[in-house]
């Protein structure tokens, strides 16, 4: 079972989605916090902190979609129509924010328009991703090999809550990222936001965790039976540890610590969702094995993934290394 190709691929897709969430999470977060900057100089600093890396971050989303199409085509064919509207809105939002990176420097008259596009696009994309997550947790109605639910099934109180949870969580990632990358007043401002957003994120994680078992009793059983119960025992402790590291770091001068702690919260939440889902890829009816493409497809793609994913992680890390350190707003001015 552990060496089953579809299981390995479920792990790779999960890794791609998690990587997307933490990487694009912080740069969407910077967009969410954008209107709270008090000066053009701060706005420029915020945007420049992610300008060299955002495109690579967003590529993980394409890998998530493309990977699903390649190795779990049935899941892709069911999820996309089920989430038609949130996915479409997310795509349109990403169009707005993606072009803002270039456009805002090309005009002064319309700079406000593109700043709004950057903020609005980030907010809508983050919220829609959270709504999509909530809609999946609720379960998707399938008949035969196609989505059989209605057009508005994705919109419930629960999915709106997960949408707001992701929005808050991304804003926390953005605030802790900026705390790490900036200095002076902007850093102080972001540090203050990070405290509130940290509290908000923890509250959201708690609330969603409480409500999740009510979406499907099956989730409840998985959490309280092996191997899930092991994780259930660990989770509260680990969340507490991350929270401590987050707030402790916001007090002190260790600027990377809050960001890493916030990432930790995301990783823990993500593993929790994974445990709830397993062995399903689209709850409640479609398992990982059922949705998988034939082994020939999985194997052919796996060869590429095994060679290329480490390479990608390598040069992505290098790009981050090149642009490491605090951003100096004075650099480049004459």
């Amino acid at each position, binding site marked *: 079972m552990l060496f089953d190709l579809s299981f390995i691929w479920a792990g790779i897709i999960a890794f791609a989605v998690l990587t997307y969430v933490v990487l694009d999470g912080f740069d969407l977060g910077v967009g969410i916090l954008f209107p709270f900057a008090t000066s053009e100089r701060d706005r420029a600093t915020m945007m420049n902190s992610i300008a060299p890396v955002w495109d690579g971050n*967003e590529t993980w989303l394409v890998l998530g*979609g493309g990977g699903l199409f390649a190795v779990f085509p049935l899941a*892709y064919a069911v999820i996309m129509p089920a989430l038609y509207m949130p996915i479409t809105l997310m795509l*349109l939002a990403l169009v707005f924010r*993606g072009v803002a990176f270039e456009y805002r420097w*090309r005009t002064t008259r319309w700079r406000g328009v593109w700043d709004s596009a950057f903020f609005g696009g980030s907010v809508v994309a983050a919220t829609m991703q959270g709504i999509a997550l909530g809609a999946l947790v609720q379960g998707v109605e399938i008949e035969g090999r*196609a989505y059989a639910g209605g057009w508005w099934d994705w919109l419930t109180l629960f999915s709106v809550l997960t949408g707001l949870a992701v929005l808050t969580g991304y804003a926390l990632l953005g605030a802790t990222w900026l705390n790490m990358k900036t200095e002076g007043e902007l850093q102080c401002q972001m540090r203050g936001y990070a405290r509130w957003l940290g509290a908000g994120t923890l509250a959201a994680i708690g609330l969603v965790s409480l409500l999740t078992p009510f979406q499907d009793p099956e989730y409840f059983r998985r959490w309280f039976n092996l191997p899930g119960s092991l994780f259930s025992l660990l989770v509260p402790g680990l969340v507490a540890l991350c929270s401590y590291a987050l707030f402790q770091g916001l007090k002190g001068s260790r600027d990377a610590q809050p960001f890493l702690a916030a990432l930790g919260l995301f990783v823990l939440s993500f593993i929790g969702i994974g445990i709830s889902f397993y062995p399903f890829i689209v709850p409640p009816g479609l398992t990982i094995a059922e949705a998988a493409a034939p082994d020939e*497809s999985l194997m052919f793609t796996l060869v590429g993934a095994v060679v290329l994913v480490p390479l990608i992680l390598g040069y992505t890390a290098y790009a981050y290394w090149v*642009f490491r350190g605090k951003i100096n707003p004075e*650099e480049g001015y004459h």
Partner: protein
Amino acid sequence: MFDGLTAETLARMQFAFTVSFHIIFPAFSIGLASYLAVLNAQWLRTRDETYYTLFEYWKKIFAVAFGMGVVSGIVMSYQFGTNWSVFSDKTGPVLGPLMAYEVLSAFFLEAGFLGIMLFGRARVGDRLHMFATAMVAFGTLMSATWILSVNSWMQTPAGYSINEVGQFVPEDWWQIVFNPSFPYRLVHMVLAAFLTTALVVGGVGALHLLRDKTDAAARRMFSMAMWMLVVVAPLQIFAGDMHGLNTLEHQPAKVMAMEGHYDSHPEGAPLILFGLPNAETKSIDYAIEIPKLSSLILKHDLNTPLAGLDTIPDEDEPPVAILFWSFRVMVCLGFAMAGLGLWSLWGRLRGQLYDSRWLHRASIAMGPMGFVAVLAGWITTEVGRQPFTVYGLLRTSDSLAPVSAPAVAASLTAFVIVYFFIFGAGTFYILRMMNKAPATRNLGLRDGPVRAAGITPAQQVDRDITDDPTPQGN
């Protein structure tokens, strides 16, 4: 706005609209990325400032075009699932891995090194910066390779079998990737991208030559672009012909529609230059034709019989009128490009390359024509694939997701509004950047404080691009 249209028609309109917008940007950025790599390499080799000026000039334009390509491309990668989920389920095992390879081997490469290429020269030094520039160019070509393999497989499927639930499953990856039309299509498209870029660069160079024919950067880019045309345009005509013969072999109905051959010609088929395809009477009205020439071109013999659409069941025919015209637009533009190349060669030999104002005006007029030709070509091949998504095996009507017409109509409306707004603005900014002369930079700048992560060169270098004379930033 979309009353009375079926979900299938709307989904097809949405795909046509989003893919047409999308292809414009890759067609330009594939060629431009390679051009930037050449400019950068030339600058490092010769230390000729003109190359550096050109690199910086086109780099900024590339950044905007590439950004538009990225965001419109993400839309494409999800649209297969939202509107064509049955197609996704059935072809996923074969096409999905190719697209996954595109992401893994191309998109990450482009995105990962783009930041270093745009912002990192001062931080990593010239050599690594050159490497990053080369990687971006290589990434664009890899991307073209995989996605054209996908499209070619849809046109000429090979190396598959069909399983018990009706999915295409892989039998032989080599045959899938290198399916019969792939090599021809890949060469045809990459050459098209290079031509498109050459025409744009040539047009911009010509514009600045008309204003100041002593501008060294304008002269250099115009000369480089014209050499590109001289070499590539004839190659493209040859490659296009080969591609057409390959299409005749595998998708005869597509070629019949392109040629306007409603009827079979047992004595040798004429080449119909122009006319009006009439779907009612199944004939070409007012046709101007050259007898036997079509047989000569397609079969290299005047009297070889050619079958027409009368041999194809009506329900398997592509729409003739669209193909007939889009094909002619593409071919005419191809010859016009070759003509412009010859004209520039003649001007060059007479020493008039930088003085012939009519040549410059013609180059400006031809500047956007690469895009028109690329779109016409894609319309030809994609509409010619109809009524199938996987040629001869999976009908378009059987590929659709369980979507309702109002939902597709709503999203189509949103895409149309957003795309015109966003890409209209982007095109305006690019044109405004092109309208600026590639001013030679202050040579003292490069040794002074240069932007590292954090300050977009836009503020440093583009102060003059904005529509407002006041200094920006602080």
